[in-house]
């Protein structure tokens, strides 16, 4: 299971701009929970969140808690030119992780060396498609807002 974010917020990065459908995801993230929108009628999980179920068209949904375990589906290593904040963190990786609970649900994130380590902290040699990872949460802030984003650490560092 994942745990609530600890340590000082990382600054200089873009904060998520939640829409109505996505807002619950970010609220749960702030509590250290990885939850995915799930149809209350047919049980189909969907990501990104949206108003109704593409399978049964129900508007009733709940947010199911995931184990936080997954595997790297793909990744890139970003080099400049980049936005300020990211340029300072370069070279950093970006992952797509498929969740162990439901491989059809994939999340974009970053592999970090430890839960409180910054963007770009994971060694490039650790990146491998298929590598098992688990979610951790990191606070990010821009002076006005404080949020938490899921990040990923290797199950077997």
């Amino acid at each position: 299971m994942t745990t609530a974010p600890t340590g000082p917020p990382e600054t200089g990065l873009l904060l998520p701009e939640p829409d109505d459908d996505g807002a619950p995801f970010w609220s749960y993230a702030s509590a250290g929970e990885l939850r995915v929108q799930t149809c209350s009628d047919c049980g189909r999980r969907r990501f990104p969140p949206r108003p109704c179920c593409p399978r049964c068209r129900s508007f009733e949904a709940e947010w199911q808690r995931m184990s936080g375990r997954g595997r790297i589906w793909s990744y890139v290593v970003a080099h400049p030119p980049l936005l300020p904040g990211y340029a300072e963190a370069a070279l950093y990786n970006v992952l797509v992780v498929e969740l162990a609970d439901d491989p059809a649900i994939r999340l974009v994130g970053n592999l970090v060396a430890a839960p409180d380590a910054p963007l770009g902290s994971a060694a490039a040699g650790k990146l491998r498609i298929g590598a098992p990872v688990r979610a951790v949460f990191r606070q990010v802030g821009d002076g006005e807002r404080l949020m938490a984003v899921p990040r990923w650490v290797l199950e077997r560092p």
Partner: protein
Amino acid sequence: MKDATAIVGIGQTPFAKRLPESEKALACRAILRALDDAGIDPSEVDGFASYTMEETDEVEVAKSIGAGDVTFFSKVGYGGGGSCATVAHLATAVATGQATVGVAWRSRKRGSGGRPWRNTTVQLPTPAQWTRPFGLLRPADEIGMLTRRYMHEYGATRDHLFNVALACRNRANQNPAAMMYERPLTREMYMTSRWISEPLCLFDNCLETDGALACVVVSADRARDCRSRPVYVHSAAQGLPAQHHGMVNYWTEDPLRGPAWTAAQQLWKHADLCPQDVDVAQIYDAFTALVPLSLEGYGFCGRGEGAAFTEGGALEIGGRLPLNTSGGGLSEAYVHGFNLITEGVRQLRGTSTAQVPNAATCLVTAGEGVPTSALLLRS
């Protein structure tokens, strides 16, 4: 729709990293050249089509060029995915009597005007909230993610991507209008160039260009009276697959089966031709990796075979499928793929700077990885 309309005029401005004129002035120049190429007076124009990202609009363009009363105007979304759809919308409008002389255009100062991904305020919450905070900032990052997975699943290598970059560059070296006309590319240059977003390097990315292009669409009947040889719109299609998510298509069951597959199904369904009949292809190349994905989607090879298809000079003149014969977005100019349409027309007129002998059919595609479109042109 089949062969009911034709492209009878094409026009363009120079391509450069920086042009002094405004996007509006460039648009007018390209459109007036296209009309002159067709031998049609601007006052006869009654239809317009462009991209939603186009910043010059019908009102400004129509009054500047002295168009007549306009009865059809349309804009297509999703950046470079809309290129072929502009012609498709005009073809539909002309074929159904909504317009008689249609103009499609794209004018863009992407070379000197800044990079869209640097704008952090104008971002859709969906899907950007799920990607941008993690530093997936640029189109190169988004497509790089799919490219890595593609390489992993099918054994594609950087050499395959180089084959695409090289074919485009070789054609640009034959085209005096191309930004890379005098700039040959070698494998060593490619392999040692700087990374942008691994696995994509500098030469996997398209150019940054100021420039404008336009074309004129009329009925097949009218086309016979025009100044230039008509190039017929044999088939046209748009494609937005079920559960597609745009450039960050990571959330669909099969992210590597992109919009090309949907557009292709529609395109071939309404055509008398099949992929084997295509003499030359202009495939959208904002990134090299889009070419193998598109080759699969449009049926030139099987799933996972797009990278291998590029081997043995297949994309060069004389190969199985000569590609992007003016240099494409990678080496001629990146104007959201409109130069692929005009080059398709030149090939079928027999006036390309890298002419495929006796080319009679040309596939032109729009951006893969976003809701897309395609044209099958014939002479």
